[in-house]
């Protein structure tokens, strides 16, 4: 199998890695770097549980090859934590609003919402719904997720 050496910059740290040309960013982050906040959910780009920010924009880790991310800034949800694992204000809102049940969709939801709020300031509830179409949740019914994001956007 063709291996190539790449540098991945994940949450502001550099990682030198040998990867196969066919390895997805999800495989490398989850299995090679042990990042449990980037998750396999469908492998089709439908569910959004493998969402990461690539140079600040949400992408599906399952549809992105690791080599495509080489040299770019990759942010996972844990990259939002402050010193001492202090929660990011958006994570605080998710916690306070009960926006996680099983928690499996949470990283993707948080990263997609963060990008939306950064781009638009104060999105409407309908704009938030639209932005989250690629992040499925089977537990919450979305209401508390939308509440959390609105609360964050109002901060």
């Amino acid at each position: 199998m063709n291996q190539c050496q790449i540098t991945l910059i994940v949450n502001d740290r550099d990682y030198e890695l040998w990867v196969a040309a066919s390895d997805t960013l999800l495989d490398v982050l989850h299995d090679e770097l042990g990042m449990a906040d980037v998750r396999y959910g469908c492998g089709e780009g439908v569910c959004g549980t493998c969402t990461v920010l690539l140079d600040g924009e949400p992408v599906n880790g399952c549809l992105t090859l690791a080599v495509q991310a080489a040299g770019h800034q990759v942010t996972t949800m844990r990259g939002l934590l402050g010193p001492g694992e202090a929660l990011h204000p958006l994570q605080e809102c998710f916690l306070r609003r009960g926006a996680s049940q099983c928690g499996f969709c949470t990283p993707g939801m948080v990263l997609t919402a963060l990008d939306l709020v950064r781009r638009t300031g104060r999105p409407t509830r309908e704009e938030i719904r639209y932005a989250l179409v690629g992040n499925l949740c089977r537990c919450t019914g979305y209401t508390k997720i939308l509440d959390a994001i609105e609360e964050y956007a109002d901060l």
Partner: protein
Amino acid sequence: MTTSDLQRSYRVVGTSPAHHDFVDKVKGSLHYAADWQLPGMLHGRVVRSPVPSARITGLDVTAARALPGVIAVLTAADVPSNQVVELASGGLAELQVSMPVLAADRVRYMGEPVAVVAAVTPQIAHEAAELVAVDYEELPGVFDVTAARADGAPLVHEVGNTLVSWQIHCGDVAGALAAADVVVEGEYRTQHVEHAYLEPEAGVGWLENGVLTLRVSTQVIEHAAMIAHILGLPQSKVRVIAAYMGGGFGGKEDMTVEPHLALLVWHTRRPVRMIWDRQESLLGSTKRHPFVMRYRTGADRDGTITAQQVEIIGDAGAYPNLSPRVLFAAAACACGPYRVPNASITSTAVFTNNVPSSAFRGFGAMQVVLGYESQLDLLAERLGLSRTELRERNFLAKGDLLPTGERLDTCVEVAQTMRRALGMLGEPPRPSGPGKLTGRGLGCNRHPYGRTIWFRDRASAWLSLQADGTLLIRSGVTDLGAGQAASLGQIAAEVLGAPLDDISIYIGDSALNPPAGGTFATRQLYMSGNAVLHAALELRGRMAPVAADLLGASADDLEFADGRVWAPAREVSITLAELAAACDKRAVGTAHLSTWRAESGSFDPRTGQGDTFPDYTYGTHAADVEVDTETGQVTVLRYAACHDVGRAINPMRVQGQIQGGAMQGLGYALTEDMAIEEGYVQAALFANYLIPNAQDFPDVLVDIVESGEGKGPLGARGIGEPPIGNVAATIASAIHDAIGVRPDRLPMTPERVLALLDTRGSEQQ
């Protein structure tokens, strides 16, 4: 101290702290089943049948075994005990049919496991699975319940295609129907549905000190016993650890990866990880039972229901799994929250060559809501009564008899939930334009919580006050993400006064934690909540005299709060650490194990009389919809749900259960269909199976009734499953109101709604 003393003032119960697992979940630091790796770990993969019904005439693993990096390829011959017999109703009435761990000579559904592979990388395991050569000689199959019951139908199992048929009878149905002023009839059909938890089935297994340990995404660690049986091991040599699940909804109640993972670990003597692809999960995981339900309901002119005849047939698929109990729940709940003095109910599970159906949130008691609520709406229409008036006339009340002869011994606040749910909707909407029709619907339900009563259910919990005054809880409970563990912390904190941050909760380990009996049947708050409550009360009762002695007060007057024990009027106190030290000095134990037992009873399958479930949760949903008469598209405009949860231990989590359940129900009502054509699963991709996204439906408005009269801890009722039940009936009711025709088939797709509009057109002509 008793629970009634506690109820004077709650400090922790009734509040909505976000603690325990939820903190790790928003940090992204929780490790799910797929997130563990061990040194030398192999990767497992299942080889599945590509055909629904066939004889295996040849199986060649030579090429697969020869692939570099492949460590094991196992077939039926490698399974010490290849027949799993699960009698879901405890052998009360069902056929005894076994399911192989790996099919030996016959496959009965598409996706049935035939072989398993372990290799050094997932890619090699995948490749090796493709190289396993299986020769199939296709056999005729049966793919729906009607075909399966026909004379001369191909047999899925030699003993016959009818797995179980439950009967519940009371009174004289034929006589009452003949004497009724009106009789309405309906036939309702529901579909296969996918659980679609976002975390696919996964786990890691390893051997240590001769013990096989599996850390998996499962609702039931008690499967350890079955795994031991399959491998021919003593039960003490198998340990199952349940990781926090990324959703389960009943789909992780049966074993998923466990038997195959266990086989691979046992044969290779190495750690193995197995993760099902989403596509494999769609193909091979159990589904919700499709039902065919025929209802005949008789009533007096004033709207009093006098009789109901119900025939339910459920598609069990190729193996029994939990079908006997699902169809039992359907029978026991077939008449809903209404008094029916003369009832005749049959509920039958039929084998087909479809993928097995099994547990799914609602468990038979949810499919029937479409049946009984549709009948109520049809009856109201026929009698010219309002839908609410008709329901109020027939709602059950405490003390009433169910068709099984059981007397309801807790309050029934369903009328209150109906008023509140409808009240949340506000003014009826107007159509948004020409060709649009709006309608309002409602759906009430009665949903059991707790296991079927004849299982004599029990759950244990162990509490320990540590020397520094912090508290440990150990319970075999598994956590689906609904706060199953966290709520136990709230209950213990309430009784013992330890701050939530000082409580650690250990769950889901069959070797180290006291058995709690699995998370299903909306039973864990009821069972483990009671176990923790009673363990905490008993532990407090044992330690209180020591505190009383130190404080110079009576043990009965002490207050346990804020990490301290207080004398009356909060004049003096000691810390819980001081109490622990004093107990230690006096040889008073600060750890305590308690087992809580549910009420027990028996059911006679011949007479259809006896005990079914410990209690029920009642609720009502209401919705406004708009129907586009050009396209058949149904838009849900507003949605409201209200349930009596007895007491809300954590109101925010209760809301979350109701909102999430309602959203799953909206998918079930309108979009989700796990179509299986002649045994072939049609949705091979997640992209083809439409679970609701954030844009599809409006927010679910929630109101909670707290009657205080449940059988859970502090009067709570279970709320995990109930809120999915009402939805399809509510949407059908709203469409009926909008277009004047009753939908009777799920999902209510635009095509089906257009067809209903056509029947209306032809009737008007």
